[in-house]
């Protein structure tokens, strides 16, 4: 199984809503990532988890809250988002950190904030 699975595929939320994005991998990878991608731009790193511990936060606003319940799961909790947060949110994993390792991406969650 070489898949990274993300749910939901699409999400529309209001600025006062609380929602969560979910990511799962069963490749035994010990590093997991959240990326944000705006249209026609490359992905931008948000968070890195290594061995279930948050190792990198790329100065992401606190309205985005990551969580790694176990080695296979990664969540991104969303609260009080702004319309400019609308984007494709991608989860990825690699065998280890650093990300010089081969990176596997999920299919993403297309988020619209109204």
């Amino acid at each position, binding site marked *: 199984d070489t898949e990274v699975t993300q749910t939901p595929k699409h999400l529309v939320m209001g600025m006062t809503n609380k929602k969560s994005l979910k990511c799962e991998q069963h490749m035994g990878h010990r590093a997991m990532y959240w990326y944000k*991608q705006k249209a*026609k*731009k*490359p*992905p931008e*790193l948000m968070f*890195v988890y290594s061995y279930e511990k948050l*190792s*990198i936060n*790329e100065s992401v606003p606190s309205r985005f809250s990551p969580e790694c319940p176990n080695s296979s799961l990664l969540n991104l909790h969303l609260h009080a988002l702004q319309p400019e947060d609308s984007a*494709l949110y*991608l989860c*990825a994993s690699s065998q280890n*950190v*650093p*990300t*010089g390792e*081969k*990176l*596997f*991406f999920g*299919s*993403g969650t*297309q988020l619209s904030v109204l």
Partner: protein
Amino acid sequence: GIQVEQSPPDLILQEGANSTLRCNFSDSVNNLQWFHQNPWGQLINLFYIPSGTKQNGRLSATTVATERYSLLYISSSQTTDSGVYFCAVPSSNDYKLSFGAGTTVTVRA
């Protein structure tokens, strides 16, 4: 940080044509990855290629690390090859990949 430049920015191909995409990077790297993002957003890792040449079906890639560039070859292109192709290299901070701006490929039937 390391700079990654991809060319051309856009490429329109007739089905069956061959093409070459280029990725230049500004500093020494110990690996390079090529990704294909399809029109539905899925990013697929095509190649993990620190140096040399690799082939995967109709796609092949060559990295010349000493000259700081990599090439991605698409042969006998198909409409399913459409999408955006990104190359990425590790930044000086090992945890972070630096992506190029991408090449948007459109293959017409």
